[in-house]
């Protein structure tokens, strides 16, 4: 940051140059990741990275106060706020990057490139060969300098931004707050109501029917083997995060049958080595053949026993 | 600085509009009287202007000039020359009659029980006064920008007058009438707006040119004319032509010149007769007036350049308008097309660029205003009686309502410019003025005289003469209010026809000045007679020729 202290210099220290080139590259990459990642979380994280780098650049430019604020407020508060919302709305909710609007991508690219070029051209036009650093500006300390300005020259703007912040906070609360109009219903009332309606009188079926996956995001299977959405938490349903495993069980059955056929076909040693196992499988196989439901439950119990 | 007379002439009607609009809904009658009162005050002021105006005096008189928008050199500049005074007088004279004629046009319909908030009556008269104020100020403005503003603002009240207070006697279903009316109003607005916007571009262009060449941009007519005169300002001919066209287009729409005329028949047909008079006799005059004051004086070269084309368009208007008038079945549309033909004459006279032509054109504006007012208002009375605008619904009115028929005939005769009535003089002057520079055009234009006779007499014959139709048998003759409206107009027609000199004296200097700006001289007669006058002929009456005026024919 020595460059910052030099008055009316025409170039900065090589250190800063190096730092600029390295971190600048990373910042750009971060920015690109922000807009290209499929998952919002990743975007958020890469953006946070970019911001931190920017904070460093602020410091490099002699804006010590802002640099800190950048890290604390932005990276620390705002980005976290983002992450919270992402969590609320769905961590894994990744919108497909497939463009729905016709020609949107091309237009965007076109405008982007044109815009960037023009902007750079503009900067290039500006004659900024020599520049005077923040030497005397920061002589009394950067924070004091800012404070002097904020509380004298920009005091009204400052007050108004304060008002703005309050308003924003209130607004956010108003928007997110959901007014509970009536008293929460007790369990008894709920059960009575269920009985009155007559739909799913017992509690909702639990998800995760197999021993192998008893996670909450796996729907239980109905007798005909189709998954029942009902068993999955509404939020997950909302995010469309339901893993359907009904198919793979059938696939496994098919695999088993083949294997048993092979086993029945020719008895070699290496097959005999796993004979006991095979036998049981066979038996279940037949059982499975006539009554899938029992088989399912048996397998389940067995899974539980494991 | 003295009392701002010109401002007053514009402010009074504006105040009148406000006052009229402010009259509580219940007192409809009061509103009418208020409006009438203010219009009469305006008339008085206009009379003062007329008296204070000295024909021999300066070019612009009673001038007022205040800085308005300094940054753009826009000034609040008023001033009247002879032409403006004449038209100012015309406006001030016509408005009271228009108000009187429209006395019941905005009343609640019979049977309809108006609630307490019902105030169209107030609105109607307020709008009329508003139009008057704007017309007056656009006659007085000598600052192009100021003029433009009111030239455009005029459209707003006119739009509401046409669209809001249509002719109830359409002889059609209510919604049919309503749709026709709104169509007419929108058409009127769009046409004039289009013209106005093109003009706006030209106005801005003018500012750019002046700012470019004079250092400080200005809209002041006098300054620009001055600058041209002493060579500080000389536009490139292409620029000048473009600007001229921009201005002319707007004015040509306003004073309907073929082929920009189609809005007029709709507007006049659908609006009530007084509003129709307001359109054709007052508002449209602004267009022709502006041609004289702005087109010619700001862009003399371009005017000369465009003259042939414009003359031809004017000729087409004359013949075309007359022929279409003959072909009409609707009384009001017929009068509208007749007006188109007359506007053709006016424009012809303006661009003939001769003293007679332009003087005649100016007189024509006044006379046409009065004559059309007379004819149209009587037609309006007729239509309200019978409840139909179609010519074939009438017949033999002359027998049941002789006075109405008589006034209608006089209005018609004025329209066909019968000698002895005012329009004859102006029309003949226009013809002579045109003929002396463009003989062929002059001759073609005279055909318009015959056609005029055709459409007027056909109209009169079909409506007034012949066996009495059953529907008109019980038609009452003109009432006192209606006579009060028509009689003065007819008297005015006759007076101006017999003794136009005072008017001519006011107009002539202004016309001469305009021509001097355009730098055109009247063509000399080929074999000028040495001593025009009687003396060479009969030595007897040396003294006689002077002690005139005591003789008869008064």
């Amino acid at each position, binding site marked *: 940051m020595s460059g910052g202290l030099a008055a009316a210099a025409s170039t900065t220290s090589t250190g800063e140059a190096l730092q600029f080139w390295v971190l600048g590259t990373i910042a750009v990459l971060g920015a690109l990741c922000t807009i290209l990642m499929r998952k919002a979380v990743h975007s958020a994280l890469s953006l946070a990275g970019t911001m931190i780098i920017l904070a460093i650049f602020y410091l490099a430019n002699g804006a010590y106060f802002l640099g800190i604020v950048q890290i604390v407020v932005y990276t620390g508060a705002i980005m976290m706020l983002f992450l919270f919302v992402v969590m609320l709305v769905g961590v894994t909710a990744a919108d497909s990057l497939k463009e729905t609007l016709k020609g*949107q991508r091309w237009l965007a690219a076109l405008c*982007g490139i044109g815009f960037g070029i023009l902007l750079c051209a503009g900067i290039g036009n500006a004659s900024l060969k020599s520049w005077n650093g923040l030497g005397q500006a920061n002589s009394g300390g950067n924070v004091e300098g800012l404070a002097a300005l904020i509380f004298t020259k920009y005091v009204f703007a400052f007050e108004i931004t304060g008002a703005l912040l309050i308003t924003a906070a209130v607004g956010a609360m108003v928007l997110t707050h959901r007014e509970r109009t009536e008293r929460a219903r007790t369990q008894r009332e709920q059960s009575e109501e269920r009985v009155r309606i007559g739909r799913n009188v017992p509690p909702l079926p639990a998800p995760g029917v197999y021993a192998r996956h008893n996670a909450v995001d796996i729907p239980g299977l109905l007798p005909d083997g189709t998954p029942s959405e009902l068993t999955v938490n509404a939020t997950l349903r909302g995010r469309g995060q339901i893993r359907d495993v009904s198919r793979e069980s059938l696939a496994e059955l098919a695999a088993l049958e083949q294997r048993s056929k092979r086993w029945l076909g020719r008895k070699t040693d290496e097959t005999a080595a796993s004979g006991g196992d095979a036998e049981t499988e066979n038996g279940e196989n037949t059982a499975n053949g006539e009554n899938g439901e029992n088989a399912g439950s048996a397998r389940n119990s067995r899974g539980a026993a494991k | 600085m003295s009392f701002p007379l010109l401002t007053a002439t514009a402010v009074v009607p504006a105040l009148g509009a406000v006052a009229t609009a402010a009259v509580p809904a219940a007192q409809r009658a009061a509103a009418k009287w208020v409006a009438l009162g203010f219009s009469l005050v305006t008339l008085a002021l206009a009379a003062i202007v007329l008296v204070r105006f000295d024909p021999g005096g300066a070019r612009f008189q009673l001038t007022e000039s205040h800085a308005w928008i300094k940054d753009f050199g826009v000034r609040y500049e008023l001033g009247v020359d002879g032409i403006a005074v004449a038209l100012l007088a015309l406006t001030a004279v016509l408005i009271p009659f228009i108000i009187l004629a429209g006395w019941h046009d905005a009343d609640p319909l019979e049977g309809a029980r108006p609630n307490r908030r019902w105030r169209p009556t107030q609105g109607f008269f307020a709008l009329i006064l508003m139009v008057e104020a704007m017309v007056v100020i656009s006659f007085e403005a000598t600052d192009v920008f100021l003029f433009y503003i009111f030239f455009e603002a005029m459209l707003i009240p006119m739009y509401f007058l046409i669209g809001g207070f249509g002719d109830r006697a359409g002889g059609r279903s209510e919604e049919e009438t309503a749709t026709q009316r709104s169509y007419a109003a929108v058409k009127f607005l769009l046409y004039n707006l289009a013209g106005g916007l093109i003009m706006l571009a030209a106005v801005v262009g003018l500012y750019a040119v002046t700012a470019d060449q004079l250092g400080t941009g200005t809209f002041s007519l006098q300054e620009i004319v001055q600058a041209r005169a002493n060579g500080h300002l000389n536009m490139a001919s292409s620029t000048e032509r473009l600007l001229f066209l921009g201005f002319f287009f707007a004015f040509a729409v306003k004073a309907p010149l073929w082929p920009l005329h189609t809005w007029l028949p709709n507007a006049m047909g659908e609006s009530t007769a007084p509003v129709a008079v307001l359109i054709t006799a007052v508002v449209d005059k602004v267009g022709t007036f502006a041609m004289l004051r702005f087109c010619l004086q700001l862009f003399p070269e371009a005017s000369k350049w465009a003259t042939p084309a414009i003359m031809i368009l004017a000729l087409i208007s004359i013949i075309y308008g007359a022929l279409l008038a003959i072909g009409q079945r609707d009384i009001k549309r017929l009068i509208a097309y007749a007006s188109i033909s007359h506007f053709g004459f006016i424009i012809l006279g303006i661009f003939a660029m001769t003293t007679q032509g332009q003087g005649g054109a100016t007189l024509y504006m006044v006379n046409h205003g009065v004559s059309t007012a007379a004819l149209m208002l009587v037609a309006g009375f007729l239509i309200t009686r019978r409840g139909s605008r179609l010519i074939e619904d009438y017949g033999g009115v002359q027998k049941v309502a002789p006075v109405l028929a008589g006034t209608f005939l006089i209005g018609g005769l004025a329209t066909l410019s019968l000698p*002895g009535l005012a329009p004859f003089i102006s029309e003949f002057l226009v013809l*002579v003025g045109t003929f002396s520079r463009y003989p062929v055009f002059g001759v073609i234009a005279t055909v318009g005289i*015959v056609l005029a006779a055709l459409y007027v007499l056909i109209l009169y*014959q079909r409506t007034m003469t012949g066996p009495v139709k059953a529907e008109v048998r019980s038609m009452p003759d003109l009432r006192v209010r209606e006579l009060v409206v028509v009689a003065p107009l007819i008297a005015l027609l006759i007076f101006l026809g017999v003794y136009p000199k005072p008017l001519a004296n006011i107009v002539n200097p202004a016309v*001469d000045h305009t021509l001097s700006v355009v730098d055109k001289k009247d063509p000399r007669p080929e074999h000028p*007679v040495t001593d*025009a006058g009687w003396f060479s002929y009969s030595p007897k*009456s040396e003294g006689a020729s002077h002690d005139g005026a005591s003789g008869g024919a008064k």
Partner: protein
Amino acid sequence: MENLIGLLVAAPLLGAALLLCGGRRLDGKGHYIGTALAAASFVIGAVLFADMLGRGEHDRALHSKVFSWIPVGGFRADVAFQLDQLSMTFVLLITGVGTLIHIYSIGYMEHDERRRRFFGYLNLFLAAMLLLVLADNYLLLYVGWEGVGLASYLLIGFWQHKPSAATAAKKAFIVNRVGDVGLSIAIMLMFTTFGTFTFAPVLTDVDNASEGKLTAIGLMLLLAACGKSAQVPLQSWLGDAMEGPTPVSALIHAATMVTAGVYLITRSGAIFESAPDAQTAVVTVGAVTLLFGAIVGCAKDDIKKALAGSTMSQIGYMILAAGLGPIGYVFAIMHLVTHGFFKAGLFLGAGSVMHGMNDEVDMRKYGGLRKYMPVTFVTFGLGYLAIIGFPGLSGFWSKDKIIEAAFAKGGTEGWILGGAALLGAAITAYYMTRVMLLTFFGEKRWVPDEAGNEPHPHESPSSMTIPMIVLAVGSVFAGGLFSLNDSFLKWLEPVTGHSHGDSPLSAATVTAGTMVVLVIGVALAWAQYGRRPVPRTAPRGSLLTRAARRDLLQDDFNHVALVKPGQYLTRGLVYVDHKLVDGVVNGTAAGVGGLSGRLRKLQNGYARTYAVSMFGGAAVLIAATLLMRAV
């Protein structure tokens, strides 16, 4: 004295104003007011006449400038009167005959509830006609010219409830308007040529104008004259004009208004003299019309239409004479005056006959009226003798002179014109005899009118007969009086000038020839209508007769050549205006609407699309700023 001239016009004008604006309260005495003012005007005229006689031959002309009328630039028109011998002649004729006809109308219009207005119109006519002949410049003359047109319009269409009358009035006015175009163009030409259109300077300095100009002016004036005086080709209105009340036909369409054309040409003599081509045109028109009118007059069964044809032909004589130049002017005017007497008398007689025959106009339904209305018979008879040029009566003197002058024109032209004039005289004799016989001789052929009441022919009241008698006296003696040692010639010469052409035939020869053709004409008529009874319904007749009944197809021609195309043109234009001119505009509007409809598709509601456009917009803005900087 000069100021009296103004009064001359003012008196009837005042009458018109009173009667037309007076309202019903004047209904009772309106006709007296009108007549009184007409008479007053006549008295003033007489006084002026006396005064004029009192002065030397060459300073008889009076001039009075009332006020400056239209002063615009070099264009100066005054309301100024000029009273010279020519004007004086007309003044006396107009006011005199006019007054008589006012008196006549008192009786004739007795039963009409709109009599007051009738007299108002008559007074208006007098004023306009006087203005016409007193004006000292062409523009003021134009005012009178159109004024009489208006009066005739109002009077022809006086019985407006009759569609035929209304149509006839309109036709008259419009045909006259065509003529007026000629007059106005002539005035413009004068203005551009001489810088003025006051008689005196124009007519004195005619010579320094190019002949082409003068010819143009002359032809235009001729056109005007044709319109007003019902000369070929603008003659078609006169026949229909008979729809008006008979006094109107007598005053306007026989005695005064229709002769305005003759006045115009005579007054502008100087112009025609220096434009021989124009003169040729004039005489041609005159000759053609005098035959045309005569032929039409032969075929008509409607007594008034027959007389109208005769009027046309007589005016043809006058125009012919006026076209001959100085040889003819005087006789043109002279014939005009005498014709004013006898033709007015004839019309009044016809009116009186109709009055007695409850408004029957078909001569084939008259017959043998002489014993029922003797006074009418005698006056009509005298008028008849006068018009056919019976020796010693007015017509003889004037017409004979015209024929003489026609021959005196010299060359083949002279022969042709003279021959035409002679032929015209023969035909005149024929058809007038025909009228006479059909009306007053033969057996009764009366039929009850559609109302079913048998006509009871009776002599008209004295208010009607007295004017007839006076006019009869005039038609007997006027000619002789005028010719008495060429008093009339001497009287007019200072104004019009006069010259004796070199006639190839002696005056006596011409007179003899006239007598011969006269006898032939009468004899033919007698042979056809006198000896054998006349059928009530007209026989089909020869092709010429049928054509003549239809006014020699003039109306059909106009209809085909002008009216029909005009109607199609207007209809077409109405369509064009609605579909094309308006359509273009509406089309544009529709186009814009469609375009905006397309553009509306861009507003797909997706925020990101808008974002792109904003993005692009920002880029454009930057580009603009950079460019501005660069420039």
